[in-house]
């Protein structure tokens, strides 16, 4: 009886249920999405943590199940590209700060 009940519950879950909903079932960190092999810390010249998953959820981001693989792939590339051209990026960030002040 137990098995039957569990199976029914699983098949009635919407396929594109968001992680926001799943959060109550234990999905609350980036590791829950990216897995252990994709560390939360990424390279940005030096190690820098990605903002908390909860802060994204609070700002209205929705993480559908079918985006997990996309995020995983991007996280791998981020390790390589995270600190790309820091000198140039720094220049542009300064420029943009000035622009925003205007």
């Amino acid at each position, binding site marked *: 009886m137990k098995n039957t009940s569990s199976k029914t519950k699983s098949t009635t879950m919407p396929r594109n249920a968001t992680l926001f909903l799943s959060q109550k079932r234990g999905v609350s960190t980036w590791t829950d999405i990216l897995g252990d092999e994709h560390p939360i810390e990424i390279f940005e010249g030096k190690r820098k943590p990605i903002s908390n998953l909860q802060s994204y959820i609070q700002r209205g981001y929705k993480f559908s199940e079918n985006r997990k693989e996309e995020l995983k792939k991007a996280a791998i590339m981020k390790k390589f590209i995270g600190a790309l051209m*820091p000198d140039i990026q720094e220049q542009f960030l300064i420029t943009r700060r000035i622009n925003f002040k205007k």
Partner: protein
Amino acid sequence: MTKIKIKVTKDILARSANCVSEIEGGANCALALAIRDIFPDANVQYGVIIPNQQDFAKACLEINGKEGLGMCNSEIIKRELGFKTSGVIMTFMMYFDTSTPEQREMMKEEEFKLELPDWAVSKIGNGEIEEAKKIISSSKTLEFV
């Protein structure tokens, strides 16, 4: 040098609204989607577009080894794996990156000019200029200037 126009349409804004800039900004946010027709595996960073991020990753490992992940600096330009973008594009990127999904969906459409170096054009499609022209002409988000 080939000049094109990138169109960040409402469709692009809607499809990229949930993009997590910190993780996937280069690969799945608005500008990366807008140029996907010509560079399906591109990575768009502040100040530079890498047409093929897999090529870059390999080169980065070759240059710096595992210890140097994410520290390739200007080597990418020297090896013709990336090209610079305009300040206007970067300003848009920062505006997009700091907006919420709801704000992104409400943003208005934008158009940006982009100069593609010849080596980058040769990475479009089969590398033939005629095919590149065909791909750009049939794209909903790209246009020749």
